[in-house]
């Protein structure tokens, strides 16, 4: 009875396991009912059964990336030739063409066939370039904005507005990607001031000095010192080969080093007059 119960429990566990993990999900084999060809078709290919097949089984091949010479051979194959000076192969946005791909094959007597062209010059795709530009942007680390405070001697007065200003200069970065010249421009879009007393201010205004101050903060009397820090959110644009600027969809944040300040608490006091 006990044995029968144990066997039933084991069977139940196996059923549970098989229900969760399909058996044929990790077996390495190809389904026979979904492929458009079978192994026999490949056998025909490699045995020369298919028309137009270049049978190369077990014969070493060598591949070479090289510019083309006037005679239609690769540079560096031992012949005296010069690269085609005017290939007239221009890629979009000034990208550098990929060099031709050449192939040669070793015969049974050990000699090599002449190099033959496999793929002519090709251009990198514009999608590849855009992906690299996006990556360049996301990995860009602009210099954090410089902070300036007024009063600027490190001492401010409680209840009196402290003036904050950030450097709003755009930052430029240039790179050569796939042979194309790319410029990237980062511009401050938003500033988030952390005043050091638990309060923050977010604004697109970089601020202005006295008497035209636009970004200010008045400290209360509860603290004697604070550290002001700034997070700058940068918007970005890029241009390729000096073309029109195009905006990125994403932004970058940088953090400026904090500035320590002393908060003074002046009090009015009546004093005796000698007059």
């Amino acid at each position, binding site marked *: 009875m006990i044995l029968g119960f144990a066997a039933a429990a084991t069977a139940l*566990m196996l059923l*549970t*396991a*098989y229900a*969760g*993990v*399909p*058996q*044929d*999900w*990790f*077996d*390495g*084999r*190809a*389904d026979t009912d*979904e*492929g*458009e*060809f*079978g*192994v026999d*078709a*490949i*056998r025909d*290919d*490699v*045995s*020369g059964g*298919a028309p*137009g*097949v*270049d*049978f*190369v*089984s*077990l014969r070493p091949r060598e591949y070479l990336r090289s510019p083309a010479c006037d005679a239609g051979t690769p540079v560096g194959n031992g012949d005296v030739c010069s690269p085609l000076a005017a290939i007239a192969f221009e890629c979009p946005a000034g990208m550098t063409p*990929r060099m031709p*791909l050449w192939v040669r094959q070793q015969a049974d007597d050990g000699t090599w066939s002449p190099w033959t062209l*496999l*793929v002519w010059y*090709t251009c990198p*795709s514009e999608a590849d370039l855009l992906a690299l530009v996006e990556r360049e942007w996301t990995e860009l680390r602009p210099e954090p904005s410089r902070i300036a405070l007024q009063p600027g001697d490190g001492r401010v007065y409680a209840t009196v507005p402290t003036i904050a200003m950030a450097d709003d200069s755009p930052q430029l970065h240039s790179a050569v990607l796939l042979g194309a010249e790319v410029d990237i421009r980062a511009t401050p879009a938003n500033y988030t001031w952390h005043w050091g007393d638990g309060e923050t201010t977010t604004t697109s205004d970089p601020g202005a000095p006295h008497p035209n101050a636009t970004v200010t903060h008045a400290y209360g009397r509860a603290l004697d010192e604070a550290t002001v820090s700034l997070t700058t959110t940068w918007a970005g644009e890029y241009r390729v080969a000096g073309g029109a600027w195009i905006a990125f969809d994403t932004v970058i944040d940088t953090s400026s080093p904090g500035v320590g300040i002393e908060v003074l608490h002046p009090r009015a006091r009546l004093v005796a007059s000698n007059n």
Partner: protein
Amino acid sequence: MATAQFFLEQYAPMFHTGDTRVWEALSAPECTYCADALENAERVRDEGWTATGGEIVVNEAQTQGALTSELEASVLLDTQLEAAFVAGSDGVATPTGDPGDVTYGLRLELIGGHWKITGVASEDS
């Protein structure tokens, strides 16, 4: 042939690690076998299951290949397929593939200067 061999050798590591990037980079969009294996490996990873075994060991002395056009190739590979297991969240390892000698036929296409797998067939030897 090197690409085809390397591709098959990535099958088991993809299931073991959940890292599908190499497999995806070598797979052409029309490859059904590639897409099915990718989907299954992602499922194993996302479910938190653990895959072991399943290695495809290529017998390098028996590889054959042919260029069927300037941009297409066919490759025939004899392999030893190891037993495969997947353990669910309960830790119980379920056998998911039988070991054995398997012949693979692969079709490849030169796309953007890189060989990619466009189809895979197999049969037990």
